[in-house]
């Protein structure tokens, strides 16, 4: 039962990296180089000979029955089978020999923060990389909390890898700045290139895509997900080679440019391996119909525009349901931009097979929604707008007993909008969908009772993200803060790794988090807490914390200082509109040389010189970056 991970594009975490081995203790200042906790990035040990630890010295041959190179060969053969990066990180720390062999056999590299190290460090350590996952900007940049042109450029990475890894096959980028030139270099430098995945990226356009389409003859995957792609008015679909392609997945729903449909039809026709196709809204329903008839082997479909363009013609409308009926293999459905709800019943034939359904761009009322969801017994992943109301959520709870992931987005994403979903929907889901693992829920009203109920009914929860849109909103029935609800979540959901809190929260909520949130890796806080103690509870109590993002909360210098023992073991800390001073940030930067402390924001205003608008700090092996723009001060 593999879920289609490409659906979970927005905020998916590296779920696979749930390390069972304890993080390395870096409290001792004697160890100069920072080591990651084995779960987030590859561990680093300085390669100069006299700094190795726990080493079976290669000099003492008398204590070893076999010569080193034989051992290394054996190791190589064994380590080939190690896929998980946690395991590989651990293996690399056994001794220098293991380090060497692991480095030479690692083919997939994950870099959670592109500024944690330089591209040359990557290529110096790992010699045979065929796949790179690289993440750039911090998540809060998505919400306009960071000026554009902050960085996260792909350019230095692609140019370094072009020379070092000519056999590179896969690049998966998230929140990176990628230019058309970068794409051109990629297309030219890697003849065997197979997979390009760009999630929440920007800086390129259809001309860059055209080059990739044209030059990467072995391309299997071209997934553009929630990226900003400029319309260079290039017919990129026509740039794919004329002969049969290897394409397995093509996702371009975020490309805001018209598509040459004839070329697309031809491409689909000559792509026998194509399983996943996500169209943009410039593909009409009529055109979709034709595509479906020609591609019944699809397993994942993102529809284009689900409406009729012109006034309905006098000719008969195509039988959309028949086209969907022909797609017996479709298990994942998304799109539905520009939805005309009267056409929705066309998807009935595939509902029973669906494991993943994304209605999050479609304003569907409960009446239109209920008949559809009542057929979706196998659904595991469901994204929708709150327009389906509590009533719709109740229908989901009645039918979707296999639900693992739920995301409810606001149709009207403003603080004081109406809010058609509430604790009623959450309670229903908790009672009906016991296997729930991940939830993102936007609402305007919530109660502690419903959140507690979810904590008790859904023990498998690993991700709990509740966004009560009105700031500082208490439990709307009792008037109390939401402390008890979130406290129950960290206490009862023993597998919880990701938490986002909202509503009126006192320090008590954070006390609970520090006491019970032992596996929490990612924490998002906004407009919450009363004092420094709140942040201290978390920094002192959550040993697995990797990513901490906080905005508009009353946490100051004392709290920040209290976490110094943790920062080398974390991927990043983001704090904006809190109560930090520049002086304190400077102190921390001085005390922790491998931490890059970025202060972002205007310090033109002399009165506010000491006030830190945004702090973004992260560990780095290669010191502060050289491409920081003017508005970033690296302390």
């Amino acid at each position, binding site marked *: 039962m593999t879920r289609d991970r490409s659906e979970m594009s*927005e905020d998916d975490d590296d779920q696979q990296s749930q390390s069972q081995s304890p993080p390395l203790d870096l409290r001792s200042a004697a160890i100069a180089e920072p080591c990651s906790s084995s779960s987030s990035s590859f561990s680093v040990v300085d390669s100069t000979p006299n700094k190795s630890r726990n080493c079976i010295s290669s000099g003492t041959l008398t204590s070893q029955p076999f010569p080193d190179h034989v051992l290394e060969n054996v190791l190589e053969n064994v380590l080939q089978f190690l896929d998980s990066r946690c395991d590989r990180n651990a293996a690399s720390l056994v001794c220098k020999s293991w380090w060497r062999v692991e480095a030479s056999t690692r083919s997939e590299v994950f870099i959670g923060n592109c500024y944690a190290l330089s591209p040359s460090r990557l290529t110096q350590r790992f010699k045979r990389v065929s796949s790179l996952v690289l993440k750039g900007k911090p998540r*809060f940049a*998505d*919400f*306009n*909390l*960071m*000026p*554009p*042109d902050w960085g996260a450029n792909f350019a230095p990475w692609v140019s370094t890898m072009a020379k070092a890894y000519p056999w590179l096959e896969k690049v998966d980028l998230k929140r990176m700045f990628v230019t058309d030139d970068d794409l051109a270099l990629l297309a030219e430098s890697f003849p065997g290139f197979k997979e390009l995945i760009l999630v*929440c990226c920007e800086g390129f356009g259809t001309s860059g895509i055209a080059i990739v389409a044209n030059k990467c003859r072995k391309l299997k995957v071209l997934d553009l997900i*929630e990226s*900003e792609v400029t319309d260079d008015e290039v017919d990129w679909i026509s740039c794919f080679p004329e002969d049969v392609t290897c394409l397995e997945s093509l996702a371009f729903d*975020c490309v805001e440019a*018209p598509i040459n449909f004839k070329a697309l039809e031809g491409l689909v026709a000559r792509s026998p391996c194509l399983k996943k196709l996500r169209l943009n809204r*410039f593909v009409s329903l009529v055109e979709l119909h034709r595509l479906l008839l020609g591609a019944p082997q699809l397993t994942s479909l993102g529809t284009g525009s689900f*409406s009729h363009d012109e006034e309905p013609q006098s000719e008969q409308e195509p039988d959309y349901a028949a086209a969907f009926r022909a797609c017996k293999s479709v298990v994942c459905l998304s799109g539905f*931009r*520009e*939805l*005309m*709800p009267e056409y929705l019943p066309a998807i009935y034939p595939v509902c029973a097979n669906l494991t993943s359904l994304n209605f*999050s*761009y*479609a*304003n569907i009322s409960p009446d239109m929604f209920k008949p559809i969801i009542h057929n979706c017994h196998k659904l595991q992943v469901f994204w929708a*707008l709150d327009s389906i109301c509590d009533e719709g959520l109740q229908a989901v709870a009645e039918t979707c007993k296999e639900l693992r992931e739920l995301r409810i*987005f*606001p*149709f009207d*994403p*403003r*603080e*004081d909008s109406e809010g058609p979903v509430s604790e009623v929907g959450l309670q229903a889901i908790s009672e009906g969908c016991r296997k729930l693992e991940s939830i993102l829920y*936007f609402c305007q009203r919530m109660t502690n009772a419903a959140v507690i109920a979810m904590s008790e009914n859904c023990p498998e929860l690993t991700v709990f993200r509740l*966004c009560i*849109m009105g*700031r500082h*909103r*208490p439990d*709307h*029935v*009792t*008037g109390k803060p939401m402390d008890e609800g979130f406290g129950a979540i960290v206490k009862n959901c023993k597998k919880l790794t990701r938490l986002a809190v909202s509503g009126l929260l006192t320090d008590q909520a954070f006390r609970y988090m520090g006491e019970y949130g032992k596996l929490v890796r990612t924490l998002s806080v*906004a*407009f919450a807490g009363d004092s420094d103690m709140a942040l201290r509870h978390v920094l002192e109590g959550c040993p697995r914390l990797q990513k901490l993002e906080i*905005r*508009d909360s009353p946490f100051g210098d004392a709290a920040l200082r209290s976490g110094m023992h943790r920062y080398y073991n974390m991927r990043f800390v983001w704090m*904006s*509109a809190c109560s930090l001073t520049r002086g304190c940030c400077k102190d921390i930067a001085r005390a922790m040389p491998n931490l890059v402390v970025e202060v972002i*924001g*205007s310090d033109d205003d002399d009165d506010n010189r000491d006030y830190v*608008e945004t702090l973004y700090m992260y560990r780095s092996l290669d010191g502060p970056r050289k491409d920081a723009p003017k*508005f970033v001060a690296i302390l």
Partner: protein
Amino acid sequence: MDEFVNLKETELRLGLPGTDNVCEEKEVVSCCYNNISNKRALPSALENEIESSTRKTETSPPRKAQIVGWPPVRSYRKNNIQTKKSESDHEVQGSYVKVSMDGAPYLRKIDPSCYKGYSELLKALEVMFKFSVGEYFEREGYKGSDFVPTYEDKDGDWMLIGDVPWEMFVCTCKRLRIMKGSEARGLGCGV
């Protein structure tokens, strides 16, 4: 129960009814990026401003100033939530209208409320479709070009762009069409 929630509403303050001082303060702080760089940070703030200003023309109660980046929904998602497509009403706020030009192969979409007035709109159209629109005369319509910019309003009538006040245009236009040739001349000679 509800008392707790509504306490703020009955609070005696010096501010205007409906404004929230805390909120404004925070907005100043959180909006500082709008001053630094006027690229992407601005449109969302502008969006919010337009929303709150168009709201003022209706009789609904004044709304809270919006905080930057809150609620945390990506702009990509915000921009792509389409309103229900129905033949009757056409919701204007933040939605796009189709623009077609006779002879051009593809439709484009624009959001008229993004522009401050007709000249900005027409300039944008000229760039988008690579044509020039000629000069607008109140009586005679557009002169000096084969192309005439028109739009379809709520009642289904095709009007010349520029004939009604800008605000009315933004509220009533359903789609745009840049006509060419003889059809254009028909509309161009006085409405």
